[in-house]
């Protein structure tokens, strides 16, 4: 796909950082406000789709590398499985950090409260792992399909 006009590229340069920051905010506050790993990963992945559409698939291969995305995807999935196996002293997927006083281990107020960032046990760590995996997976899907569209279309007669 060819690159688009200068107006589209200027707006993209201005706006894509804010979209990625908003996605990371949704991932980090997943246990207090609406959001979580899936939603934040999807929002940040749409920023990569915006970059790819506006700059064209040939130019954007210089700053979006498929191998780095694939590496982060594997890292997220392995981190999620390790966090699931860590509570195996009692059951699989046991929340061993909640109400323990260490990382993310404050006891939550019961009932309606303004929210404390330091609660939730193992849930924020799992949010980060799943968010990393979903973000990288959407990046790999969009990059691969954009380079495959150049491959499967009919050659123009020159």
């Amino acid at each position, binding site marked *: 796909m060819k690159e688009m006009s200068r107006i589209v590229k200027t707006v993209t340069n201005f706006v894509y950082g804010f979209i990625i920051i908003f996605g990371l905010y949704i991932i980090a506050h997943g246990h207090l406000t*609406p*959001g979580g790993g899936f939603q934040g990963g999807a*929002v940040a992945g*749409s920023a990569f789709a915006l970059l790819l559409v506006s700059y064209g698939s040939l130019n954007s291969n210089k700053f979006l590398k498929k191998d780095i995305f694939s590496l982060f995807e594997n890292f997220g999935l392995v981190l999620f499985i390790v966090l699931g196996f860590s509570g195996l002293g009692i059951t699989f997927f046991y929340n061993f950090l909640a109400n323990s006083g260490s990382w993310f281990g404050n006891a939550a107020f019961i009932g309606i409260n303004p929210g404390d960032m330091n609660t939730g046990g193992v849930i924020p760590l799992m949010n980060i792992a799943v968010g990393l995996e979903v973000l990288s997976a959407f990046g790999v899907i*969009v990059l691969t399909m954009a380079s*495959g569209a150049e491959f*499967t279309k*009919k050659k123009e007669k020159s």
Partner: protein
Amino acid sequence: MSSFVEIIHISTLVMMIIASFLAVVFRKLLPSIIALSVASLLLSLEFYLLHAPDVAIAEAAIGAGLTMAIFIFAIRGTR
């Protein structure tokens, strides 16, 4: 007060049905996909009206953004 919310609810459902009907009827592929994206965005508003903000964020990001990009790559690859 509640009747106002119900009017918004009913009009969202009716517009969603019209948009998905247009997505099936159109002959050319690009207008059809734009109608599908509009239907998905209205479905996200419907989820918010049913008190499910988590699902509304996910549907707005995935259904209206990434599905559109993937379908456009597929059309560019098959012409």
